[in-house]
């Protein structure tokens, strides 16, 4: 009898499912490990919040692998509804007009009231087009921030440096004398080139930092200001203020976690990981320093991380489901949960207010650094950049920077090479866009 009841129940459930005719959509992402668990939690939350739609997330490897998988699937007509694309891939996916439905159009055509002003200033325009229309929905948004070992700085008798001038004349020598490596960092192109430009209010590329189109866009890195940054870093390395442990992110973060390093430049998204560890010291975070010799009015930084793109070629019913998912994702509660669990910044002001009201920043003041830095003064150089084949351009930068710090090349030669090779890549990319 009991068996029969179970069987009937199962049959009823099956019938119920078909009766509702859930619209199923797919979401390909590059979030592994603990981040992947949180992604699955969001998807589960969305599926349980209503019974019309069902989203299935799938982990596709690194950011690069996710983008390549998405492209291959698109060419085969098997694209997912939602594809996560990272900052360096923005020009590729946005340049291919017709590959995606701009998220702003998607939301508006499905009757959602969209206002870009609802989003935090620093996240608004990175994944937007030249007219400021949002193309990709910022998802895991982070910004480079300066983490520091509180005890190390106390022992050295210094406070977190506001400017690089202060770092090199006061902070670094004191930290060295106290027995620490003064600084390490985990991503030279992102932190010390891209966000150097934004923080110090410098243009990064011609054509409005590349937003006005790929044709004729040239990179602007071979400048005295940026070269001075790297000349200084090479000098700091000589003096024992700075250590470089290779291009890998983790190799440079580990010494900080071991308590050997005073200051580490990482991502605001590193906060979740750091606070879950049992570190032998207290850490905190603050803004990236700027060069007083370059600007006296430092600006905000822009986001790194990745955005979610709605792929084209899907039925209206599925696009409606995608819209519903984006609405759920941008709701203050979900954004706050994502922010709290991972350390990525909440993308809307409403979510930020919710986190504040909940006392999140009273408990973890460092968690607020990213948002505050993204909300500093803006200028025409703080929206971001739009350059094609940018993955290779970053590779070229990493290669030359590595050679600077291993003494294989000079700063001048390195920047000449970066400028030449990047401009060749940009010109090649422009030809793919016809």
């Amino acid at each position, binding site marked *: 009898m009991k068996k029969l009841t179970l069987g009937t129940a199962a049959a009823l459930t099956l019938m119920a499912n078909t009766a509702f005719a859930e619209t199923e959509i797919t979401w390909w992402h590059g979030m592994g490990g603990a981040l992947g668990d949180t992604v699955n939690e969001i998807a589960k939350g969305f599926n349980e919040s209503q019974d019309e739609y069902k989203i299935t997330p799938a982990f596709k490897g690194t950011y690069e692998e996710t983008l390549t998988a998405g492209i291959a699937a698109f060419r085969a007509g098997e694209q997912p509804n939602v594809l996560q694309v990272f900052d360096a891939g923005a020009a590729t996916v946005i340049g291919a007009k*017709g590959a995606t439905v701009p998220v702003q159009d998607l939301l508006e055509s499905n009757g959602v009231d969209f206002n870009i002003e609802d989003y935090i200033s620093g996240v608004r325009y990175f994944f937007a087009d030249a007219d400021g229309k949002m193309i990709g929905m910022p998802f895991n948004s982070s910004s480079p921030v300066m983490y520091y070992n509180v005890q190390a700085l106390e022992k050295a008798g210094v406070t977190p440096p506001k400017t690089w001038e202060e770092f090199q004349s006061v902070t670094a020598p004191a930290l060295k004398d106290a027995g620490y490596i003064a600084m390490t960092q985990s991503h030279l192109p992102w932190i010390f080139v891209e966000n150097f430009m934004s923080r110090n209010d410098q243009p990064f590329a011609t054509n409005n930092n590349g937003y006005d189109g790929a044709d004729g866009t040239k990179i602007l890195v071979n400048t005295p200001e940026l070269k001075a940054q790297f000349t200084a870093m090479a000098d700091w390395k000589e003096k024992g203020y700075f250590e470089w442990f290779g291009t890998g992110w983790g190799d440079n973060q580990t010494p900080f976690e071991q308590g050997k390093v005073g200051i580490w430049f990482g991502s605001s998204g590193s906060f979740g990981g750091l606070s879950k560890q049992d570190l032998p010291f207290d850490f905190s975070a603050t803004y990236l320093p700027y060069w007083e010799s370059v600007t006296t009015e430092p600006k905000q930084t822009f986001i790194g991380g990745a955005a979610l793109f709605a792929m084209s070629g899907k039925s209206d019913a599925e696009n409606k489901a995608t819209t519903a998912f984006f609405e759920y994702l941008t709701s203050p509660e979900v954004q706050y949960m994502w922010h709290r669990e991972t350390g990525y910044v909440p993308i809307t002001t409403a979510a930020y207010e919710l986190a504040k009201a909940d006392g999140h920043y009273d408990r973890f003041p460092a968690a607020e650094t990213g948002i505050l830095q993204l909300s500093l003064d803006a200028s025409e150089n703080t929206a971001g950049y739009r350059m094609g084949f940018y993955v290779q351009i970053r590779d070229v930068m990493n290669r030359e*920077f590595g050679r600077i710090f291993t003494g294989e090349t000079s700063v001048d030669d390195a920047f000449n090479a970066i400028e030449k090779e990047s401009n060749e890549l940009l010109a090649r990319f422009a*030809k793919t866009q016809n």
Partner: protein
Amino acid sequence: MKRAGFTTRWLPMLLLLPQLAVIIVFFYWPAAQAVQSSFYLEDPFGFGSTFVGLDNYTYLAQSTEYAKIARFTLVFTILVTFFSLALALLLAVKADKVIRGAKSYRTLLMWVYAVAPPVAGFIGLLMFNQSWGPLTELAKSFGWDFTLGVNATDTAAAMVLVSVWKQVPVNFIFFLSGLQSIPKSVREAALIDCASAIRRFWDVTFPLLAPTGFFLLIINITYALFDTFGIVDTLVKGEPGNNPMTLVYKVYVDGFRGNDLGGSSAQSVVLMVLVLALTVVQFRLVERRIHYT
């Protein structure tokens, strides 16, 4: 001399068909596509493309970085091939003489063969870990400040070492069976004629091993050029940075990481031509001097 043959024409064709179909679908068709797309610069999503003629090739020819990678690949291939063959030969000659517990020795020496390249790379990553890797410590005790992923030469040394380690067992198996197929009578005759073991090796054993050696030479060059991909990728942790890389890895970096379809297609065409040329040279020149028994 009696010639065996088919009585009908269609039967051999039919028997060949499945194999030909596999070759066409998995080799000729993609190869033709690679040649075609090497003349274009194409938007990865397939919306825009520009015919650029030989631009992708001239771009490679003028790139000093590509030349550097090609030079590294050459040196890497020579080192990996030489050391894999030499070490395996030494081990095989020694193992051939072992009588007691021979099977356990051989099994132990062959074991590594079962390790997949990325796993081998990962083991290398652990051994050369910057802060606690045992091999890093060992190098330090000799005064060599070994830093994987920082110093390009150190990374290259690790790549060669792991690649050799991974390949020695394969060569060992072939060399050992080659040694064991040398007739006992020949060895005994040599033993009577000459007392020096080294002379006996070079005058008798080595020439008789030449067919095996030639076969292994081709296999090893191909291995160093192509199959070390997994090791290279793991050791650089997916970040090319200032690390050395092989030509095959460069195809991956530009094509799969960077979505430059035209550029990476041109690179794979260059590799195809290289392999063709290599094979012709090997069979034409090297094989002439080898006498198969």
